[in-house]
C-alpha cells in the first residue's frame, strides 16, 4: 500500500466486477481531497434507437427486449405501453394484472441475483459469491432458488425466461387458464417465506453510516406499488405525467461514458431504483412487506444507499406477495389482447424496471412504421448519483488502505445494481492520487 508521500493518488478499477456489462471507475485524489470521479462506461454504444427506425411498432418489443438479458420484461413493458399510449389503447382487468404478474417475476429474479450473488459478498468481505458459497452454501442455495421462482413466472407467462415472446401490443398472444396459473402458487409461497428470511438476513449486515440528501425519482400510482403506471414524482415536489418527462429531464454526452448522462432541470443528479421507489411509495407496499421492512429496522424513508440491499429484499417480498394476490384473484380473460386500429401517433411510457424508471417514446406513421424512438434506461439516469456518492464517500474513508478503499468504492457502485449493458452501453475502477 502506498502512503501519503505523493500528494496525488489515483484509485483505478479497470474492470468492475459483479456488475452487468463493461465499465470502470476512476477516482483522482489531491492532498487528501477527491478532485475527480468518473464512472467510465466503455461498452460500445448499441444504437438501438436508430435500429428501431423503419421497423413496425408491433415488433418493437421483440427488439427492445434484446437490450437486456436480466430485465427484458421492463423493456417489453415500456415498449408496449408507449405504443398503446400512441394508439389510445387501454389494457385493463386481468390482462393488466397479468402484466403486473410478469413484472413481479422480473423483480424477483433480478433482485435475488443482485442481493445474493452480486452485492452480499461486499458486506461479508468475500471476493465473490463463490467464496461466499463455500462458507454459506445454504444462503446461495436460497438465493438461487428464489431467482428461479421469479424466472418461472416469466417462463410461464412469457413463453421463455430470457427475451420472452408472449407479450404484445394490446396484451398477450396467449393468456393462461386459471388452473395452469395456479401451478405457480406453491413455489411462490415458498419464495415469499424465503423473501421474508432475506429481509431479516440483509437487515443484519454491517452498513456504513452514509445518509445522503438524495433527490429520489420514481413512479407513483393512486393505489398500487408502481410497476407499469403512475405519475413521475420526487421527494422535492415533482409530480408530472409521463408525457412531460422530456420537458424536465434531459440527456447529455460526457466524454468518459458511452451512456448518456441524465439530469433533471435545475438539479444536478437524481436517484432512481428500489430506494427511490420505496421512499416514495412506502404506503403502497402490501401490509406484509411494510411490516417486514419496519421489523427489519427500516423506516418509511431510507437515505443510506448501502441499505438498498435490504430495500431490494423488501421488494422481493412485495413482488412475491403481489404475485400470489394476482394469481388468487385471476380469472381467464375472454381474449388475450385488446383489439386496436393502427394509426399514426406519438406515445410515451415509463415503467419501473428493477433498477428504476425506464422511459420510452415512439413516433410512428399510419402503418405503424417507427419514425423515431427514445429510450432512457435507469442506469444512465443513476450515473451522476453514483459519481456524487463516490465524491462524498472517498474523503470520509481516505485513510483506508488502498485495496480496502478500492473495494469499498466498488461497493458504492454496486449499491445501484448498475446494468451497464442496458445503459449502453461496461465498468472498470481507477483511483488516481495526483
Amino acid at each position: 500500500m502506498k502512503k501519503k508521500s505523493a500528494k496525488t493518488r489515483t484509485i483505478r478499477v479497470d474492470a468492475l466486477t459483479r456488475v452487468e456489462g463493461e465499465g470502470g471507475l476512476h477516482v483522482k485524489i489531491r492532498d487528501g481531497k477527491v478532485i475527480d470521479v468518473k464512472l467510465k462506461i466503455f461498452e460500445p454504444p448499441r444504437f438501438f434507437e436508430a435500429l428501431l427506425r423503419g421497423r413496425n411498432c408491433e415488433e418493437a418489443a421483440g427488439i427492445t427486449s434484446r437490450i437486456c438479458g436480466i430485465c427484458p420484461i421492463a423493456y417489453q413493458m415500456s415498449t408496449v405501453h408507449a405504443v398503446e399510449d400512441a394508439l389510445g389503447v387501454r389494457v385493463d382487468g386481468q390482462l393488466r394484472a397479468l402484466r403486473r404478474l410478469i413484472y413481479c417475476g422480473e423483480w424477483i429474479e433480478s433482485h435475488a441475483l443482485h442481493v445474493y450473488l452480486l452485492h452480499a459478498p461486499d458486506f461479508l468481505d468475500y471476493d465473490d459469491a463463490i467464496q461466499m458459497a463455500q462458507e454459506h452454501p445454504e444462503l446461495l442455495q436460497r438465493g438461487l432458488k428464489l431467482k428461479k421462482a421469479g424466472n418461472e413466472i416469466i417462463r410461464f407467462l412469457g413463453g421463455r425466461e430470457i427475451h420472452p415472446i408472449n407479450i404484445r401490443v394490446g396484451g398477450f398472444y396467449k393468456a393462461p387458464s386459471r388452473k395452469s396459473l395456479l401451478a405457480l402458487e406453491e413455489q411462490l409461497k415458498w419464495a415469499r417465506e424465503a423473501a421474508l428470511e432475506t429481509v431479516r438476513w440483509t437487515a443484519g449486515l454491517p452498513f456504513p453510516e452514509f445518509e445522503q440528501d438524495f433527490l429520489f425519482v420514481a413512479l407513483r400510482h393512486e393505489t398500487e406499488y408502481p410497476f407499469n403506471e403512475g405519475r413521475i414524482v420526487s421527494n422535492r415536489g415533482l409530480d408530472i405525467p409521463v408525457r412531460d418527462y422530456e420537458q424536465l429531464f434531459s440527456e447529455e454526452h460526457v466524454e468518459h461514458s458511452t451512456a448518456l448522462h441524465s439530469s433533471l432541470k435545475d438539479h444536478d443528479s437524481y436517484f432512481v431504483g428500489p430506494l427511490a421507489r420505496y421512499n416514495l411509495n412506502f404506503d403502497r407496499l402490501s401490509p406484509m412487506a411494510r411490516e417486514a421492512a419496519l421489523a427489519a429496522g427500516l423506516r418509511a424513508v431510507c437515505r443510506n444507499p448501502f441499505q438498498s440491499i435490504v430495500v431490494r429484499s423488501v421488494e422481493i417480498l412485495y413482488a412475491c406477495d403481489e404475485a400470489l394476490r394476482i394469481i388468487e384473484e385471476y380469472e381467464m380473460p375472454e381474449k388475450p389482447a385488446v383489439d386496436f386500429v393502427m394509426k399514426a401517433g406519438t406515445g410515451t411510457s415509463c415503467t419501473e424496471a428493477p433498477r428504476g424508471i425506464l422511459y420510452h417514446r415512439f413516433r410512428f406513421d399510419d402503418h405503424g412504421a417507427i419514425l423515431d424512438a427514445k429510450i432512457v434506461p435507469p442506469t444512465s439516469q443513476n450515473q451522476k448519483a453514483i459519481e456524487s456518492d463516490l465524491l462524498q464517500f472517498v474523503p470520509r474513508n481516505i485513510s483506508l488502505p488502498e485495496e480496502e478503499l478500492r473495494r469499498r468504492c466498488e461497493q458504492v457502485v454496486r449499491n445501484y445494481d448498475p446494468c451497464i449493458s442496458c445503459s449502453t452501453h461496461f465498468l472498470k475502477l481507477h483511483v488516481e492520487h495526483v
Partner: protein
Amino acid sequence: MPKNSARAGKGTQSSDGSPKPAAHSAVLVIGLGNPFRGDDSVGRIVAARVRRRNRPHLRVAESSGEGADLLELWADSGAVIVVDAVESGGKTGMVHRFEASQRALPVRFSNSSTHAFGLGEAVEMARALNQLPQRLIVFGIEGRRFDVGSKLSAEVKKAVPHVVECVVEEARRLLAPQVPGSPGSSTSACGA
C-alpha cells in the same frame, strides 16, 4: 428425448421447458452466447448443428450464458458438454477443451461474457454447492469479433464443423462408461 430436444431448440434461450425427470442418462449439450455479437454466437451455432443430427442420446439447449440459468439447465444431468466462444489471445478459430468437472476454467476465459455471473462463475458455484455434473466438458472456440451486429469471423466459421464432430465424439465417449474420457485440458484435436 429427441422430441424434447427439438422443442428446446427453436431459437430458445433456455431449457426444453418440460418437467425434468429426476436425472438424465443422455448427454446435455449447451451452446452459449449472444446470437447478435459476432463470434460470441458460435456456441449456439454448434449446438444447433448438433441438434440437427437428431441423436437420441443427446439433449441440446441454448443459453445466453447467464450463470444461474446454467446451474438450472445442468442440474439433473450427469454428463454435460458446454460450447462457448473464448478470448484468450490464442489464434482465432483454435479449439480448447477443458474438463471443468476436474478443475476451474482459466479466469481469462470468462471475459468474453458481459454477464456479472457467467459460465466460469457458474462452474465454481456448482462446485461449491456440490451441484456440479459428474462430467462437465467445455469446448472453447477462440474468437476475435464480439461487437454487436458483427458477423461470425471466417476463421470461427471454418472451425464449426470440426467442433460439431468434437462434441458428437465427446458425447459418444461420455456414454461409454468403460472408456474413460481423457481428463485435463487440451487445445489440439479436441483433446481426442
